[in-house]
């Protein structure tokens, strides 16, 4: 066969080519990928995890400081104060006898 003829035959080999059909089950695989994507979107990314952990740590530390300072305040308060008024027996007529 002449060179030119063969080249023309090669170029014409796709004439009347039929369209290949998408493989069966491909749509289900796409749906699966969409589902995975939705699940991934719901998950927190590392920055979100960091923000949530920081907020929790802040609350815990805040509560700890509040409780510690409250206890210290309680300890510092005198158990009994010696007010002269309290020691008094309120008997204002003692000397009358």
């Amino acid at each position: 066969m002449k060179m030119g003829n063969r080249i023309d035959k090669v170029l014409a080999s796709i004439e009347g080519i039929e369209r290949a059909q998408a493989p069966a089950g491909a749509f289900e695989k796409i749906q699966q990928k969409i589902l995975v994507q939705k699940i991934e979107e719901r998950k927190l990314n590392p920055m979100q995890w960091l923000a949530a952990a920081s907020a929790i740590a802040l609350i815990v530390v805040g509560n700890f400081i509040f409780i510690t300072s409250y206890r210290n305040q309680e300890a510092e308060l005198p158990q009994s104060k010696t007010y002269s008024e309290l020691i008094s027996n309120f008997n204002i007529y003692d000397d009358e006898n």
Partner: protein
Amino acid sequence: MEITDQQLLELLAKGNELAFKQLYDRYSSKVYNTLLSYTKNAEDAEELLQDVFLTIFNSAASYRSESKVSTWIYRVSINKSLDFIRKKNSQKRFGIFSSLYRKDSGEIQYESVDFVHPGVKLENQEEAKLLFKVIDGLSENQKTAFILTQIEDLPQQEVAEIMKITRKAVESLVQRSKANLKKILTNQYPDRGI
């Protein structure tokens, strides 16, 4: 009255999965056929098909109706195909480069040998094998114009819209692609009666 592509895309943007299925039924074979012409591998084409429709699903809300839906879908498919080929070629280059330094490296097979498009007529299969082998010798634009007009059988005007060039430019690209294919075939297979 049949629902238009534009309406399907609007429904999809609102999260209607039935519209997505309808859009898939309308375009899956066109997309798959295009991808297959670029990748020349059924598995790669299927992987890219999933990728294309995932992009359509995710981008439906941001789609602007400046072009037809079919034009947009073809553009997504072509971009994915070209990205895939570029990535594959760079891996191939890296493979050759690294094998220079590894004495025990085996032969790395990247190309699917003798790809036969499933839609080619039986009597044309031998010639079509040769054609698909040399098609990679074309530039990206020539290859796209050749695939869309000769294999996908799209009108030149539609190809022009997909490629964002004039119809005249498409015509010229097709002519040059055919001339280059002839040149490559003559150079690569001189001893096979070509």
